């Protein structure tokens, strides 16, 4: 059989709703996981920059554990370990929690870097006016951090969408899992090339605009910073 035969394309077309269903599940998982990762990321990013030893340590432990173990292991741990302990967790919930917790660690690092990029003097000016933590974060620091945070954040969204493919390991209903069932199914099997092509295309049309946006955003920021740096005099700190 030819790799991209007309018959195999027709088969994919006949089962187009399967692909759209998987695509929908992937997006749904991604959206909720994204929300969870942002909440966790902001909480742990703020903890990491709080200067309070205990909070910094907790944030560090979370980030290091998540970033230094495979996502697949985290998904399996959550799904199988909890299943065997008698907890019945839905696959899609497992996916949302696992991906949310995983990307939360990366978002936390992005948030931390965004806050740490703000010069010390901004905090000091705010403190010298009598602002407290919430006040200076809200009015002075975060509005400046957000511009630094957003481009890498969009990249995280792209990674998160692609990482929904890992749910395949627990037999999720995401795009990758359904594509796999389709190409190996008794009645539907065989149309490997068109099926995976369509699957990849669906990922691409979501991810490509996002990563392009992030790239443009980043270079726009760099250009702006370059202009600011040449416009204002670079001054040396004095002890």
């Amino acid at each position, binding site marked *: 059989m030819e790799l991209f035969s007309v018959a195999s394309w027709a088969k994919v077309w006949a089962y187009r709703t399967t692909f759209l269903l998987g695509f929908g599940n992937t997006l749904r998982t991604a959206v909720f996981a994204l929300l969870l990762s942002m909440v966790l990321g902001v909480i742990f990013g703020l903890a990491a920059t709080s200067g309070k030893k205990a909070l910094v340590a907790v944030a560090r432990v979370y980030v290091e554990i998540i970033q230094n173990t495979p996502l697949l292991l985290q998904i399996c741990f959550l799904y199988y370990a909890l299943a065997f302990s008698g907890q019945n967790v839905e696959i899609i919930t497992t996916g949302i929690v696992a991906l949310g917790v995983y990307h939360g660690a990366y978002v936390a690092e992005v948030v931390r870097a965004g806050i740490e990029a703000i010069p010390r003097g901004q905090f000091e000016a705010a403190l010298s006016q009598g*602002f407290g933590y919430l006040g200076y974060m809200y009015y002075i620091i975060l509005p400046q951090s957000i511009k630094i945070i957003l481009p890498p954040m969009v990249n995280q969204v792209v990674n998160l969408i692609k990482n929904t493919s890992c749910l395949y390991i627990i037999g999720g209903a995401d795009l990758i899992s359904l594509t796999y069932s389709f190409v190996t199914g008794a009645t539907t099997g065989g149309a490997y090339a068109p099926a995976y092509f369509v699957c990849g295309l669906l990922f691409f049309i979501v991810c490509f605009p996002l990563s392009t946006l992030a790239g443009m955003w980043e270079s726009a920021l760099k250009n702006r910073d370059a202009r600011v740096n040449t416009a204002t005099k670079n001054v040396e700190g004095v002890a």
Partner: protein
Amino acid sequence: MIKLEKVNKYFGDLHVLKDVTLQVAEGEKLVIIGPSGSGKSTTVRCMNFLEEPTSGQVYINGTLLTHKNKRQLIRDNMSMVFQQFNLYPHMTVLKNLTLAPTKLLHKSKQEAEALAFHYLEVVGLTDKAHVYPSTLSGGQQQRIAIARALCAETKIILFDEPTSALDPETIQEVLEVMVRLAKENITMVVVTHEMGFARQVADRVVFMADGQILEEGSPEHFFTDPQHERVKQFLGKIIK
């Protein structure tokens, strides 16, 4: 107005302030001079707890400054002008001046803006109200920073080397503003290397070296008859 009592400050093993005791009276213009690394900046930064002393006490208006009450005490009593200006770059000049008065001092937007324009006039920059700080020269940014400090209408303003980051030709415009302020009943504590300014406005000059106050007195005393060898050396190098 401000009282430091046996203030010590360590950065790790580095002993940067050694038993510093100092009083500033209401309306007094105190100038702190001394070589780099002598603890001048740390001394003023202890006055508003940007650095909390390792030991010793700071009193503002007779109230002991603590980690707990610092926010309120600072809000009500003191402002600061920094070497690097530290204007908020994401806000217009006007917003820089009205942020603290509206968010912390419970002024209405109208009141705060009227106040802001009043002090912009004092520093001679009313036409810059609606621009962003990055479009201004260093001297202009520092004058805005002074206006921002004035908008809090506090009795005390701390100046931490306000002209050290400026081009020589813009230093004068900032000093002129400060000289004008010195005629008001504001308590000013100024860390500076500008001896002309010290001589012109200071009620009292304090010389610091190695984290200690070596000598203090009137400007006449300092510039005509310094006692300490270290002070003579320092002034000899600075004033030709």
